[in-house]
């Protein structure tokens, strides 16, 4: 467990925060850390900026994220990592497709490489880390396109050489179901699963024997397509199979 100090903690919107911590880490966009609320849980979190000092950007889902959001500048920040692989370096025309907090991980790429950004959220209020040129989709149409980010993006899919995707599994599944599998672009997808260890030994994040935490989190589209469990079911903390019910979470 590493320890550092919080040097900035900014509220991005009603429940999203960016936290900058005083560490020097050698990380690449797409990598994540396990952050720890002492006495509480340890959870995975993508680096939203992999330069130093690094940042994370997170939504306050529950206990841990809420605890961390209440910390103050100067407080200690505990983590381990970075873990996982990273996005490959893109060339040519590049698109980023982010759903929900998936933008955190994509943001680390945007700080290094250019490209068109497609962002999806439930409502206008859920958006964060926006830039002027982002192409936005909201479920309720309160900002940008009304519909999913997949609906917004797919018509443009053939314009790109590299496509990077990060978002909830059902969103990714929808895209894979509808995308032309013979597309010329290289498509890389960062996955999210329940993670206990983060280092590839507990099996809680595995999909068909592939560990999101260690073999990923970034996979090529072909790899993801080969995973028969992907988008069909996930596992709960007991390792029990739970089928995805609807396309949203």
């Amino acid at each position: 467990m590493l320890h550092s100090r919080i040097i900035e903690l900014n509220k991005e919107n009603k429940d999203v925060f960016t936290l900058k911590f005083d560490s020097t880490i050698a990380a690449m966009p797409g990598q994540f850390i396990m952050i720890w609320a002492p006495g509480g849980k340890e959870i995975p979190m993508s680096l939203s900026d992999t330069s130093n000092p690094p940042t994370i950007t997170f939504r306050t889902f529950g206990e841990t994220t809420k605890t961390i959001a209440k910390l103050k500048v100067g407080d200690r920040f505990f983590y381990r990592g970075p873990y996982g692989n990273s996005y490959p370096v893109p060339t040519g025309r590049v698109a980023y497709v982010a759903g929900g907090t998936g933008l955190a991980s994509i943001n680390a790429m945007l700080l290094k490489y250019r490209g068109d950004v497609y962002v999806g959220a439930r409502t206008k209020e859920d958006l964060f880390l926006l830039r002027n040129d982002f192409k936005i989709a909201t479920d309720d149409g309160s900002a940008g396109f009304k519909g999913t980010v997949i609906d917004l993006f797919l018509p443009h899919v053939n314009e790109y050489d590299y496509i990077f995707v990060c978002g909830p599994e059902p969103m990714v599944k929808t895209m894979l179901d509808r995308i032309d599998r013979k597309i010329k672009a290289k498509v890389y997808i960062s996955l999210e699963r329940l993670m206990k260890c983060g280092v590839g030994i507990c099996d809680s994040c595995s999909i068909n024997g592939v560990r999101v935490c260690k073999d990923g989190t970034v996979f090529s589209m072909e790899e993801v397509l080969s995973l028969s469990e992907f988008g069909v079911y996930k596992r709960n903390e007991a390792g029990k199979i739970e089928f995805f019910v609807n396309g949203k979470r």
Partner: protein
Amino acid sequence: MASISTKIGRFSLENPVILASGILDETSGSILRSLKSGAGAAVTKSIGTEERKGYQTPVISEIGTGLLNAVGLSNPGIDNFVEEYRNFPEKKRTIVSIFGGKVEEFVSLARKVEGIGFDKVELNLSCPHVKGVGSEVGQDLGMVEEIISEISGKTNLQIWAKLTPNVTDLISLAKASEKADAYVLINTLRATGVEIYSRKFVLSNTVGGYSGPGVKPVALRAVYDVYKETGKDIIGVGGITTWQDAIEFFLLGAKAIQVGTAILYEDYPIFNKINSGIRDYLDKEGFSKLDDLVGVMVGDAAFKNH
């Protein structure tokens, strides 16, 4: 080239390197991956009667000399397990680890496992950090004896007894388990770890199990002690990270070994790495088969050698 096949009871393995219980063996996909990556066999994560979430994170903590864990026996419960593994293609090379708090529980788990076509169980008599099961059961000699004789009376399963090293008298425990087909030695050591700037335990459960390189000297001693006394088939486990480590266990009497924590350091290639290291050693040291190595430092064989 020397043969590295081995036999545990009536189970013949192409090679002696087995995936240990609790590491990358919750999901059927991962077990298949280990077997495809060169493991001679694989043990599942321990399965109990009911679905258990296990402890909240942090459930593992890497330390300089190994790993602390208190996953808390998270498992989907036997019925969900049966569901997932009914059509599993590698039932002969997969040993199902089961745990319980009562004799009947073990028997019922064993029957369900046999019901879908597995033929081997590993009894977790040794998890050091969950109340009422694991080593709390595994320290009760009468109960251990009964669990094993009940399962062997009521099923045709081959039984591997995984014993706890956290005892005063491992030999008596081994003797209480002698109806098992093999001993698995050792499970983790009861241990803990502290983070000094938060002044909190590094595991949510405070106390956990210690594994990895740091426990190897204790595991070797356990294998030696039990082999010397019983001469039975032993599967050595605890800190094995290199093929050299594996050789040490064979020399003290282990007929096969398991690897767990080392996967953290070496990942899936570890199975082939250890296997080819063993093969090489046998060739270079002039042994034609692995079996010729087993236990040569112990008892009569060793005395001849001195």
